[in-house]
């Protein structure tokens, strides 16, 4: 996905400097530009090929997945396959989808809000220990989530929260990277004089944050939300240790249980592929809808910084 967004956002901008630097009559595009486009095209292929394979494979029977070329259709039956995916084991797949949406959607939104508040405070308020707090957050960026899953499990187990929705939602609320990004963005994008003016007009800090700052920071927030959403959506290890009731699983974990039983029930190969196919659709939609904000946001930040 990331390859497409970068190639799309780079290509329209690239011509400007090229033309400015070379006002002399042109004999076709410059070699550098060809190289650039070629390498981007290769990168795009590299990232899109697995998606393409997934789309093709989702239309096949289990036997055809192995027995025919992975790059072209062979007696496609997409709707039949998807019907099977959605109805197998009393439609458990739909549970997984809803769970994933809940974990990633709610977790992503709240994490973004928290990151925005923390980032803004770290950027604009002077208080004791500010830098220490920020450094601690930075250290959090470096810690892999996987390393934290087991200690978290032992902790949550003491509180009796394992195998509940909270076990996934609470750890998902924290995004050190989001705090970092929000601080950098707030420093450059939120003008001190603007805040002064708002205070002079009598707005209290809460109102300034919710009414003004959030709106100015929205491009950064979209980025944080997307990262967090994708991160939670793809998270495997945390739900693996926390959850044991398969009705509470997110898609990632649920599909693995199908994969595990493939040795026994070969038709599950097809259901797993179909399930994986369906599961990338929400991510693709989120990317396509939100990338508009994302693109403008990142450039804004870079210009002002």
């Amino acid at each position, binding site marked *: 996905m990331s390859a497409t967004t970068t190639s799309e956002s780079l290509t329209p901008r690239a011509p400007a400097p090229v033309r400015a630097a070379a006002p002399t009559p042109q004999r076709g595009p410059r070699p550098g530009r060809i190289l650039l486009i070629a390498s981007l095209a290769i990168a795009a292929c590299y990232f899109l090929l697995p998606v393409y394979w997934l789309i093709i494979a989702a239309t096949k029977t*289990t*036997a055809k*997945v*192995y*027995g025919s070329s992975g790059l072209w259709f062979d007696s496609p039956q997409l709707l039949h396959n998807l019907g099977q995916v959605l109805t197998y*084991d009393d439609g458990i797949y739909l549970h997984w989808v809803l769970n994933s949406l809940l974990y990633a959607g709610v977790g992503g939104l709240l994490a973004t809000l928290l990151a925005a508040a923390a980032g803004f405070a770290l950027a604009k308020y002077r208080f004791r220990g500010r830098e220490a707090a920020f450094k601690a957050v930075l250290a959090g960026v470096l810690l892999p989530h996987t390393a934290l899953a*087991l200690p978290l*499990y*032992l902790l949550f*187990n003491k509180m009796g929260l*394992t195998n509940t929705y909270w076990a996934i939602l609470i750890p998902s609320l924290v995004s050190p990277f989001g705090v970092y990004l929000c601080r950098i963005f707030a420093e450059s994008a939120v003008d001190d004089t603007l805040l002064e003016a708002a205070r002079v007009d009598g707005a209290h800090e809460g109102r300034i944050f919710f009414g003004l700052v959030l709106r100015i920071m929205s491009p950064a927030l979209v980025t944080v939300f997307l990262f967090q959403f994708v991160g939670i959506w793809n998270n*495997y*290890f945390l739900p*693996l*240790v926390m959850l*044991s*009731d*398969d009705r509470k699983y997110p898609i990632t*974990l649920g599909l*693995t*249980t199908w*994969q*595990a*039983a493939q*040795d*026994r*029930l*070969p*038709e599950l*190969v097809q259901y797993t592929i179909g399930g994986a196919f369906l599961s990338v659709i929400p991510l693709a939609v989120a990317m396509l809808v939100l990338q508009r904000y994302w693109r403008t946001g990142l450039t804004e930040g870079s210009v002002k910084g």
Partner: protein
Amino acid sequence: MPDRRSVLAWGAAAAAAPALTACGESAGAARLTRQTKRKRGQKVNLVFWTWVPLQKTVALWNRTHPDIHVDLQIVPGATNGGYQKMHASLKAGSPPDLAQIEYHTLPEFMLVNGLTNLSEHGADKLKDEYVDWQWKQCVFGGRLHAIPQASGPMANFYRKDLFERWDVEVPRTWDEFRKAAIKIKKRGGGSRITAFPPTNAMWYASFPWQRGARWIRTEGDTWIVDFNSKLSLEVADFWDGLLQDELITVQPDLQSGWYRSAQTGHFASWLGAQWGDALLRGNAPDTKGDWRVAPLPQWEEGQNASANWGGSCTAILQGSRHPEEALEFAHWLNTDSKSIDLLVAAGYGWPGARIDLEKSALGKRDPFFGNQRYNEVFEESDGQIDTSWKWAPTNTQSFDHIKDAFGRAAAGRGTLVDALNDVQGRVLDDLAAKGLKARSA
């Protein structure tokens, strides 16, 4: 600490008790006190973790046993984190009552004191209802620690059409196997007699097992490691010969390329386990009618030694509050004829219970295997499996070592014999690292 001692009294693990406490790995023991007796009419809830799709079986139990409700929770498979999850839950002190554990992983759970001693709950009297060698896989220190569920007796799945087309006899001995391999290489137009999966240590282990080699034994409190015994190396040398003369192809099994090969006849036979029937049927449906099943080739003519690949049991984890009810369920799950038929439909493998093949769903003729009553071969095979094969409590690492070393050998760097010599030393190190006494045979 009488409980801990009796639990660990099997084999060498007794020596490990201090070491285990030191690293805080001992699970469950302290929580034995939590067990509660069920009062009359009280409803008990049991949690059961498995990756086998047992929904229908458990639903049947819950319908017929209103007092003991089983909450089936499908967890990711063994190597996808299922065991990691079980170990974490043992560590946290809130394990499920019942768990699916493979035979070769049981010793690892014994090592962390994670299994309930079922002999204490009167399980010994059930012995006659189970296949002997599978029962023994669950016995440690003379006490039963899990209920056998299923196994994978080995046999030879072969393509009758291809063997006939190339005029090759189905091999009865390993000697004939090699001769057949040479013929197929000559006549088969690129096909080979079989594929060698260097990544599958568990599959490979069945061959030294059949030969009578023992990779792991215990003597008092010491583990005897014997990967490079004479018999074990004889088997490795045989496969080395096939590999060097390119009489077999090298291909990781049970994944896309291998299934394609099964469809196209790139290999003409597969030395596989009973549960492999569903894999061939489901993944190569167009070869219907072409397959037959024959016994494993033998080292000496007239013998009928066999071996096993895979299989698992229903364990009752240490910390369950209702071990007696859990035992009742586990026994029903694995012996009730209706339950077994549902398990067979879920493709769980060869039953751990003694069954009457004639009356079971397994006794049917199968058009996929040309109407052969192919499970008769597996029934025979299951009866010939040596009962004394054991796994090390560091078996996950052992398998990884074999995979690495075989991978190198299959890529042409060294031989399988070298590989096993290498693995021998590494397994000794693994055991020593766990604080266990170990030595070479």
